[in-house]
């Protein structure tokens, strides 16, 4: 949830550090897996829709 009203209540500070290679890979893999998962869902929805259209056409 985003709260624009509270955003200026505290000053934003990030820690100026970098992750090591392993940590970077873990996050990168996490993003990749999530993306693949999302694409799978989109694909399965598309296939279901196409299947429903085919069935309708036959009927």
């Amino acid at each position, binding site marked *: 949830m985003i709260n624009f009203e509270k955003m200026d209540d505290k000053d934003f500070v990030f*820690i100026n550090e970098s992750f090591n290679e392993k940590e970077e890979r873990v996050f990168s893999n996490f993003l990749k897996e999530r993306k693949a998962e999302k694409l799978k869902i989109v694909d399965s929805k598309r296939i279901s829709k196409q299947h429903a259209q085919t069935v309708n056409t036959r009927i």
Partner: protein
Amino acid sequence: MELDFEVDQITNSIENVISGEVFETLVSLATKEQIIEKTDWVFDWKSEIRDETKSVFFLTTENDPITIHGMISLIDKGDHIFMNLIESAKSNKGKNKLYKGVAGNLVAFACKTSFEKGYDGIVSFIAKIQLIEHYSDTLGAKLFGKTRMYIDTEESYTLTMNYFKNFDI
């Protein structure tokens, strides 16, 4: 990887806390020739600009493109944008800040950059432990591990659209 655009970006606005006056803002890429008063900033932005792995952007108002209200340092990680540093100008810090909206504008700029790069708006950063809850409440950021936080696509889109009205994916 270096971000490959230098065009000023018109963002939403920042608000003068005292008068309530709203100013249109610009986000611009900082160059090595950028004049930065060391006394106004805690972080060493000059060295951040010199570092070619990073891209530093600064926020000004349209009617005063000289006064810098905030700065952000971004790294293109190839699959998301990493916010290395962010800082509001001295006058925009704490309870007596002069302008509201500086940090929001800059984070939204990072989100917009992530969409433009094809990273689905994903932006990450390392949070101070004490601010994790604040980032979660205000940016909708999620925790990954102990201190890495990331802004996911949906929240990133909301932030981008709030500050960049004309943005189109």
